[in-house]
Every structure is written in structure tokens, then in C-alpha cells.
């Protein structure tokens, strides 16, 4: 009889332990769920901005950023929250008219992207955004090149990643080696498939029609500019003349 009672006590003890473990998991899940919900709410606002293409003011950006910072109370290492905050920091940088503030926003963005990469090293978006923040900090260094390469390698068909790789690539064209330039050209070629409108905007802003004139994906879209004479792909050795 004592052995039956003893066994029952063990079972109760195990049940209690399991219950506690389950309770802990439930609480953790709930917090992660709340964090994700808050992040989702913030992301919807951002998606709405992107769809409307209406410039947002600093107060509005700060308001939405609050969603993401609040989510960190529930999930302190949520990489998506860091990523979104970093992107909002870059948006704030563009609006700022105070040099040190703009610099601080760029720094904050770089730090957040670095932090998020610790959790999501395979995200092409994070690498692309890191390269962008480095561009704004005027840090064209090994980390910048690594970010550009990783973004291209990990997300060769991701439109947003492509756009950023092409953007930062064209901005630093003269500092890229032939291999990195081929990456940027590859991004332009792939971008012609699903992303040609955005790619054309970027190319136009840099005045680099010469890079896309030989690409079949852009035939019929830049014929006038290519006939104008900017149709030879070069290594960038010639001095640029700016937009005509």
C-alpha cells in the first residue's frame, strides 16, 4: 500500500512540473504573440504609406515607431521589430534638417540592422538595409561590401532587395570592383523581369542608361535614351556627366 501512495505522489509531482513547464511555454507564446500582433499593426501602417506613396511627417513616423518599440517589451530580441525600426530611422534621417540628428538616425539604423542580423543572418532585406545605412554614413568599407554581396546572394529575386542593391551599387559604382559591378548588373537584368518600372526609376536618377541599353529586358523602354548615345556598357572609367 505504501508503494501505491508513493507512486501517486510521484505522478502528482511530475504533473505539477509539466504543468509549470506548459504554463511557462504558454506565457512565452502569449508574449511572442502579443509582440507579433503589435509588430503587425505597425507594419500595416507602413504598408499603407508605401501604397499611398504619400510622404509622412516625423510625428507620424514616431507614432508608428512606437508600435515596434512597445513590442520589444514583450519580445526584446524580436528581429522584425529591430528591422522595422531601422527602416523608420532611415525615413527619419531623410526628413531631418539637423546634420547630427540625421547622422544619429543613420547610426541607430545601422545598429538595429546589425542587431537583427544576429537573429536572421539569412535575410536579404536586412543585408540590403545595412548596406543602405552604411551608404548614408559614408562608410564604404568591408562591411558595406559584405552587406551588398550578401543581399545579392541571398535575395537575387526579391524585388526590394534588388532595388536597394542596385541603388547602393550605382551610388558607389566607382568604388566597386568588377565582381561587385557584375552583381549590380545582374540585379538590373533580373529586375527587368518583374521590377522594370522601379529599376528604370533608379537608373534614370543616376543617368546610367548605358548599363541597361544592352539588356533585352529593357528593350522598348529606353530606346530614345539609348539612341541618344548612352548605349555602351563601360566599366565606369569615364567621367560621368550627370543627368541630361
Amino acid at each position, binding site marked *: 500500500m505504501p508503494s501505491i501512495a508513493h507512486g501517486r505522489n510521484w505522478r502528482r509531482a511530475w504533473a505539477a512540473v509539466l504543468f509549470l513547464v506548459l504554463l511557462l511555454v504558454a506565457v512565452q507564446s502569449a508574449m511572442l504573440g502579443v509582440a507579433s500582433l503589435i509588430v503587425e499593426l505597425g507594419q500595416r501602417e507602413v504598408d499603407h504609406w508605401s501604397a499611398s506613396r504619400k510622404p509622412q511627417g516625423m510625428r507620424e513616423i514616431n507614432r508608428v515607431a512606437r508600435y515596434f518599440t512597445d513590442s520589444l517589451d514583450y519580445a526584446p530580441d524580436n528581429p522584425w521589430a529591430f528591422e522595422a525600426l531601422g527602416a523608420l530611422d532611415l525615413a527619419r534621417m531623410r526628413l531631418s534638417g539637423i546634420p547630427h540628428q*540625421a547622422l544619429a538616425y543613420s547610426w541607430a539604423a545601422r545598429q538595429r540592422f546589425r542587431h537583427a542580423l544576429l537573429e536572421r543572418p539569412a535575410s536579404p532585406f536586412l543585408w540590403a*538595409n545595412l548596406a543602405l545605412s552604411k551608404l548614408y554614413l559614408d562608410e564604404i568599407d568591408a562591411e558595406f561590401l559584405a552587406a551588398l554581396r550578401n543581399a545579392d546572394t541571398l535575395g537575387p529575386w526579391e524585388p526590394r532587395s534588388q532595388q536597394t542593391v542596385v541603388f547602393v551599387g550605382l551610388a558607389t559604382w566607382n568604388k566597386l570592383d568588377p565582381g561587385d559591378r557584375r552583381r549590380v548588373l545582374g540585379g538590373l537584368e533580373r529586375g527587368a523581369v518583374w521590377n522594370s518600372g522601379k529599376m528604370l526609376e533608379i537608373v534614370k536618377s543616376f543617368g546610367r542608361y548605358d548599363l541597361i541599353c544592352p539588356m533585352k529586358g529593357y528593350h522598348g523602354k529606353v530606346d530614345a535614351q539609348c539612341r541618344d548615345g548612352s548605349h555602351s556598357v563601360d566599366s565606369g572609367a569615364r567621367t560621368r556627366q550627370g543627368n541630361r
Partner: protein
Amino acid sequence: MRGAMKFELLTAVFTALALLVPLTTPSVAYAQAGAAGYVKSLSPTVFIRKGSGAQVPAKVGDVLSPGSTVVTGAAGKVDLLFADGLQISLGKESVLRIDDYRFDAANPREGRANISLVNGRMSMVTGAIHTDNATGLRLSAGTGTISVLSKDVTAFVVEVDPDEKQRPGWAAVTVGAIAIQTPSGRISQIAADQFARWRDGERQLEALPLAAAPAVLQAQVTASRATIAEASQPVDVQSASVQAALMLSQAKAQGSASSMTTAALSGQLNMVTGNVQMRSPSGAQSQARVGDTFGPGTTFLTGPKGEVGLLFSEGHYAALGEKSVLRIAGSGTREADTASLALTEGRLSLVTWAYAGEAPVPLNVGVGNALISILSKGVVAYVVEVDSETKDAGSAAVTAGIISVKTPVGPPVAVSSDKYTSWKPEKPPAPLGALAGAPASLQLAFADTIASAPTNAEVAAEVASLPPTAAGPVPAPQPAAPQPTAEPLPQPPPPVALAAVIVPPVAPGGGGGCTGSPC
């Protein structure tokens, strides 16, 4: 007879006068011999060097003549308005020389202006001399020359430092187009929303979209857009200068003019969350509100979940975390070993700025019984925390620049970017560790600081225009009425910039998060 002669004599005199007046009173602008323009507004320190070599401090309303040189000091800024409507704003540590200037409103085609930016940064909006005479405006910047290509009003920013060969010169255009002949070569066109940089010996010169410019450059251009105020129409320099001086004296009489001192720490609250109390030197305490101003002797106390953002008139920004106490030194002076800010409890994040070339910012922060000083020039950003249990213990993490941590025990320790340290009672600071290994609270605090940093340039401008106040809440100043713009300015950078900002799809639940192909 006598009356008739008198009448004839008077008639002759009046007739002679009527003939002579037009000859002796030419058109307004030309009669103001030597009056090229005037000082419309300024922040100290600004000097005017006359053609004779004499240098005098500049005041609002001062008239500039050909041969004058305008010099701004380490914190100086000045806005100049010329007779033809040409607007020039000079940044700090800049030198502008007016080599030649002639303008006749009645005959604008004959106008000439030859202006040189010897050193520093200049924003310019062209006036009638350029629009009416394509070759009338001659500009030089450092050892280069600027050609204004567009026929209409053109606005651009240029910065040069011919003495420092490694520092790039740059130019950005907001309206119109320019070309620049630099020591390294010619940049044939910089169009609207483009910029270009050049450095001694660099052969690749190109104009790039402004959206790809470094953050500091973009911010400077953004600020220059905000200062393009009145229409660039010809002005009567003499009367406008007198009017400007009168307005300033009236403003001073009403106590609303800028009288920023560099010694006293003062500013305005730009963010308040939760329970934040503000205590004046007299002991009066009240709930802090956004817009409240503070000065020497003010103490901030935050409760649980309370946070407050302090925007200093010098441009620094501090964020005080929850359950914290921060006091601003009463004397307002900056001594080498004296704290200007004293953190006795909780956490403080600080982002400060010193223009490259100046000495490090004299802004010491006491953290418990430790003293934090800034060692490096340029932007410095760090977070400090007083141990919640032991007030003589604390930690400091740096994300930009270099600071010094000095405790009562042992020599000071320099903490550089991406490093942190901590200290305990009766012990010197611990060896530096990588910031990535710092407690999460320190890491997050910095990110939060930037998230709540000043909203826009107007806030900073408002703060700069506040006189140093005694501690205690005062009604928040009304924002300045918006100035009319000269002409429609281009919109912010085109959507391509937004396209380049990635806001990735959020995967709920912290899962894989990779969408699209390949993954």
C-alpha cells in the same frame, strides 16, 4: 513790378530744381552707393571685414558694400539679402567675399555681381542679376568656379575647404542647375535634387541623386530648403536694413529675441511619457509637459514607465529613462572636472555634436560618483546607468565617439565606440567589453533614444530662439509663422528613395520570415 520779378525768379528757381532733381536722384538702388546688400539675420559670432581691413562684429541691418568680407565664427550663421534679391546664407566657420556688386533696378541687365566663397558653406538663391543677365553673376568657391546653368531662379548649397585637401568639397542643387570647375576637374552639370563631391586628386567626378548622399549632407540641404523664404525680388537695401534692425530691437524689447549663451545649459522638452516631475531651483515641482523649457538648476524625476526627452539649445539630445533623477548644474558653467549634468539614479542616453574641427564638447555628466567626459570631436553617443542598488556603481556604453569614465578610484578609462564598461564602489572601471555583450537594457536604451529624438528642424530652431530661462515650466512658444516661398520648390526626393528603403514583410510568431524565391 517787384512782385512780377519775384514771381519770375521763383519760377526760374523751381524750374531749375525740377530739372536738376532727376539728375541728382538716380534710381533707388544706384543712389545707394556701395550698398550691395544687408545682414538680414544672424547667430553669433559674425564679423564684417571692410575694404579698409577693419573688422567689426556684424549686426542685423548692417549694410554690405563691394569689397566687404563676411566671416562667421565657430557657431556663427548669417543670412544676407542683396539689392537684386540674391539671398546668401553662410554656415559656421565660413568666409564670403563680395568682390564686386552693381545693380540698378531700373536697368537690371547692367547688373554685375562677383562673389567668392573663400571657405565654408553657403546656400544661395539667385536674384535679378542672374535672371536678367546670364553673364552678370560670377561665383567662385574655394579655388573653383561655379556657373549657373539655368536661366531662372537657381538655389544650391556648396561647401569648400581649400586648406584641408582631404576633406571633400560638395555642392547640391535644389532648384535649377549649376556646373562647377573644381581643382580636380569639371562637373559639367549638377541638376535639381543632385549632388556632387570632389576631393583633391580624385579623378572620378559625377553628379548623383541627392537621395544617395550621406546623411549629413542630406540634412544640410534639407535645412537650406527651409531657409529659402522671401521672393528673390529686388529690394531697397537701405530701407530694408533699417527695418530689419528696428524689428530686432522691438523683438528684444519684448523679450523674444535670440540671446543664446553658450555657457548655460538650457532647452526644451520634446518628449514626455508617463510620470515625469520637473523641479525648479526654487523647489517648485510639477508634472513636466512637452514644450516646457528648462535651465540651470532644474531637476527631472521620472517614475515607473516615465521617460523624458531633453533637447538642449546647443543641439544635444538626452533621454532620461524611468525611475531616474537628473539635475542640471546650477551655475551653468563648464569646468574641466565639474559635471554639467548629474545623474543620481536611473539611466541617461546622450547624443551630442561638435562640428568636426572644433574641440570636444565640454559637457561633463556625473553618474553617481563617476564623471563622464567627452574625448573625441564629432558626434558622440552613449548611455549611462546608475546601479539601482548601489549608487556608487554604474555602467556606460558608447555607440559613437570616445568618452572618459573617471571614478574616485584609479585613473580615468577611455571607452570607445561599440564598447562598454562598468564600475563598482571602491573599484576602478572594469576592462572594456564589446557593446554586443552589454546588458540588453543598455543596448535598447540607445535605440530608444534615437527613436524619441527631436522631431524636426523647427523644434531646434524654436529652442535656439529661446532666451536662457530660469527653471520651471513656461508656456510653450508658438511656432513661427511660415515664410512665403519664392516659387514652388521641388518636392522631396522622388519615390525611388522610398523604394530603396526596405520594410520587409513581417512574419508573425518569429518564424522563418523569408518570403519569395529563393528561400
